[in-house]
């Protein structure tokens, strides 16, 4: 890499909340923004870029301006990044471009919102996240939202490659072990066993209840900067590479549902960073369901196509293990705080690369791979982050 890469200089993450009562998206975003600039040892006036993920309840019309007004910001660049669950990683990638191009000094990437299951479990709520084609050609058949899309991927992967329910459940189990050391995680009270996962009710076969992410409310933020403030005592984290890809919106029209656009997004990220999967020491992979992790591992090149199930069974994904992945517990144990679910993976990697992950700190923490995933493996945004001192 010839030019100086952008740095992540500040992070914040609010504890995910099950109960949406009394919460407002803008208030959550304001709290996350304040904590992130404090973490970066910056003042509000230092922020000259704003990238925000979509609102979950407010009108999306002019959303970046709504957020800028609420926060009293007058940014030189503002935009909404809408890549579903890949939005947060996409925001960090865009912020890196803005900073490296000299358009912004400090770009605030803001993600989060209120999630009210009462609203989103209604027909109207489901339709609000569907394209017209999905409403016309899928909704009449009553899919169980995103769950069924991933169930279709899992079923076909099992058929083609012999992936087993135990292998998928093991991801939830290892991640729960990680969450037990994360005070922010929604599910950090008790460990989980493979038997418990497989004995939880089948919802949309082959997915069991404990393999399905729990949407909730929350917010998280990252500050992407040209340089670190002198007062900032944290280790800076470099955005070494990123890549994006999209092959479909609805899974019905994916070229082959067991192959995701991670194949392209990861390849682009590794090429930009001049690195390869074997260089990576820590992973943080969007995990709305265990099958998402398996497909991502395969398509990013951490194992061969079809071997993801065996790979997770043979490797220890915990923070103590040989292949640490989703050391915060993943969204399966952390909770999926609106669009901040995707940001959570980035925040955790920054903690680990800084050496600030406490009880769950990994030993090897130089280089990390992060993947954001939107829709039903529709949009992918991959990031390669590294400890800046090692530049």
């Amino acid at each position, binding site marked *: 890499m010839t030019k100086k890469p952008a740095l992540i200089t500040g992070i914040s993450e609010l504890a995910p909340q099950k109960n949406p009562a009394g919460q407002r998206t803008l208030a959550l975003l304001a709290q996350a923004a304040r904590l992130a600039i404090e973490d970066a040892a910056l003042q509000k006036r230092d922020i000259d870029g704003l990238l925000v993920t979509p609102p979950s309840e407010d009108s999306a019309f002019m959303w970046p301006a709504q957020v800028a007004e609420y926060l009293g910001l007058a940014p030189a660049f503002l935009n909404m990044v809408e890549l579903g669950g890949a939005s947060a990683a996409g925001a960090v990638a865009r912020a890196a471009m803005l900073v490296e191009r000299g358009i912004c000094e400090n770009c605030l990437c803001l993600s989060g919102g209120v999630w009210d299951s009462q609203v989103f479990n209604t027909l109207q709520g489901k339709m609000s996240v569907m394209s017209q084609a999905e409403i016309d050609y899928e909704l009449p*058949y009553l899919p169980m939202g995103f769950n069924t899309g991933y169930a*279709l991927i899992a079923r076909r992967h099992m*058929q083609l490659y012999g992936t087993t329910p135990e292998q998928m459940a093991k991801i939830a189990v290892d991640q729960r072990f990680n969450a037990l050391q994360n005070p922010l995680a929604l599910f950090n009270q008790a460990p989980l066993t493979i038997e418990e996962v497989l004995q939880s*009710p089948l919802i949309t*076969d082959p997915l069991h209840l404990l393999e399905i992410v729990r949407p909730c409310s929350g917010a998280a933020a990252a500050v992407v900067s040209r340089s670190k403030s002198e007062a900032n005592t944290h280790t800076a984290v470099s955005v070494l590479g990123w890549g994006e890809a999209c092959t479909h919106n609805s899974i*019905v029209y994916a070229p082959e549902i067991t192959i995701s656009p991670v194949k392209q997004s990861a390849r682009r990220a590794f090429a930009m960073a001049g690195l390869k999967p074997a260089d990576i020491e820590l992973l943080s992979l969007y995990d709305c369901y265990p099958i998402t992790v398996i497909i991502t591992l395969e398509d990013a090149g951490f194992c061969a196509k079809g071997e993801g199930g065996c790979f997770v069974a043979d490797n220890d994904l915990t923070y103590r293990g040989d292949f640490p992945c989703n050391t915060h517990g993943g969204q399966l144990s952390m909770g999926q705080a609106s669009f901040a679910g995707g940001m959570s993976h980035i925040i955790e990697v920054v903690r680990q690369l800084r050496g600030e992950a406490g009880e769950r700190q990994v030993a090897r923490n130089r280089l990390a791979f992060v993947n954001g995933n939107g829709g039903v493996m529709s949009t992918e945004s991959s990031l390669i982050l590294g400890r800046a001192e090692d530049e």
Partner: protein
Amino acid sequence: MSDQTRKYHQYLNQGELWLQYCLNCKKYIFYPRSHCPVCWQSELEWRKSQGKGRVYSYSIIYAQSMTDHEVPYIYSLVTLEEGVRLATHIVECDPKEVYVDMPVEMAIRKIGEQLMPVFKPAAPV
């Protein structure tokens, strides 16, 4: 509802599944739309489907809160002989019997308010 979706339903209401065929690419497309997603030409001709295909993947749904539709039901992606894939139900089939690659044939059933194409196990040849 788009003109193409309206047309799709007109055929279903007559008991038939019709698909768009791109005269430029010489291939079927799905879902119906104004332009071919491959070549962006708009010379799309409606042709009647033979209604035969294979299960591409499936999920047995045990819980849903949207309607009073009976559970479980088999939600499926079916690849038609014409080369396109669509979302559908597998009907007249025990959930224990369905499998990836199972040959299926079309039937038209009312789901909710609409007549929609569904698929049942193909009769042995």
